[in-house]
């Protein structure tokens, strides 16, 4: 199962390196969000420390949409040849999940410094904990995004449907990462710890449940 997942992941990474169809547009969009936030909220006049966590995470989530939504649409457009391969269905889900985690991590690695510089707030203290929050948050977003992306890819609307499915679904995750980041800025590490627990629970549940249910999706 893991081996098959590894091969599919390798295929997708190779495709991404050759075509750069996901990361470049999503990354440009992410940087553009930081610029536009700067214009809209004018950080030089009004300090953005209070709202920075919310702005950063909304930016990352929106940019990640572009990447996450494509993962299954690619297969749907290739007339589902991958589904004919004699592999466990769960491994297909895991491969797409791993791809989405990698893509969102790269996006966040580009966007976080850009946001911190352009919005003039700097990274939060306890940078190690902050990186943990980012990693866990993006794993959760990717898990939910992969599951919803698999559903949306087979509809008439494709990725257009994804925001309506994914955004309400990940609202606890957004609350979690924003509150945890805010707690770090406020120096309340214990409060951040509680939120990190919540994010971790979200991650575990929405990796395990879709893996179990994914079999059904490939039947029809």
């Amino acid at each position: 199962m893991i081996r098959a997942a590894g091969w599919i992941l390798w295929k997708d990474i190779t495709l991404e390196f050759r075509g750069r169809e996901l990361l470049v547009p999503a990354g440009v969009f992410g940087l553009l969000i930081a610029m536009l936030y700067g214009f809209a909220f004018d950080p030089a006049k009004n300090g953005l420390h209070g709202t920075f966590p919310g702005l950063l995470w909304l930016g990352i989530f929106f940019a990640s949409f572009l990447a996450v939504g494509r993962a299954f649409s690619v297969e749907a457009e290739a007339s589902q040849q991958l589904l004919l391969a004699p592999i466990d269905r769960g491994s297909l889900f895991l491969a797409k999940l791993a791809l989405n985690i990698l893509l969102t991590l790269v996006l966040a690695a580009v966007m976080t410094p850009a946001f911190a510089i352009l919005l003039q707030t700097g990274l939060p203290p306890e940078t190690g904990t902050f990186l943990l929050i980012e990693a866990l948050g993006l794993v959760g977003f990717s898990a939910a995004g992969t599951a919803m992306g698999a559903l949306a890819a087979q509809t008439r609307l494709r990725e257009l449907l994804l925001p309506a499915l994914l955004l309400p679904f990940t609202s606890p995750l957004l609350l979690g990462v924003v509150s945890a980041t805010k707690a770090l800025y406020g120096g309340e590490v214990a409060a951040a710890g509680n939120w990190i627990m919540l994010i971790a629970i979200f991650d575990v549940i929405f990796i395990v449940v879709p893996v179990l249910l994914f079999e059904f999706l490939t039947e029809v």
Partner: protein
Amino acid sequence: MRYLRWVSVPLWIAALYLALIWVPDERSLGVSYRIFYIHLGMAWTALLALTANFVVSLLVLFMKRRRETLDNYAQATAEVGLLMTTATLASGMLWAKVAWGAFWTWDPRLTTTAILWFLYAGYLLLREAIDQPQRRMVYSAVYGLIVFIDVPIVYLSVRWWTSIHPVVFTNTGINITPQMLIAVIFFFFATLFLALDLIWLRAKQQDLRERLERMREQRLGELGY
């Protein structure tokens, strides 16, 4: 099921009489707290309908027979659940305006209900966007399961979030008297029977549609198309 309405209509009349006339006014909120009856009835029934949707979704995935009928009930429970959630939000916002002074507060239950609304609006959107019946059935069942698991997490996170948020409006609690409890119970059963009736009506309609489609295909086949 056909006789549901004969129970439902007297129940509604009784419940309305009890809630609007029989029960005395509340001390601090006066007559306005009577919104509470229809609000609570709708909220509980909405939750029950969405729980029923979860159960039906499970059955669709794991039962071998009669899945099409179950799928019709999945559609019906989600629609009625969403309808009643909308009713809960509408009556709740009006009551919040009276009791707390604003149409919207970031109260955990209010916020969770709003997210619930979006989640199940998504469910209906997903159904709408899939043309092939088999796929629609399985995909929406999977979505229904995942989303229902998400609801407790949403509630937990929103509660934590509001506890670190300054709460502007304090919840004016109502002490429930036995008289009020009777009215609450009547209203709950009235809305419950209404929901059952609506779900049945909607599922029957879906069934009719399927029969019509099958008949059309058969007819076209006979005519040699």
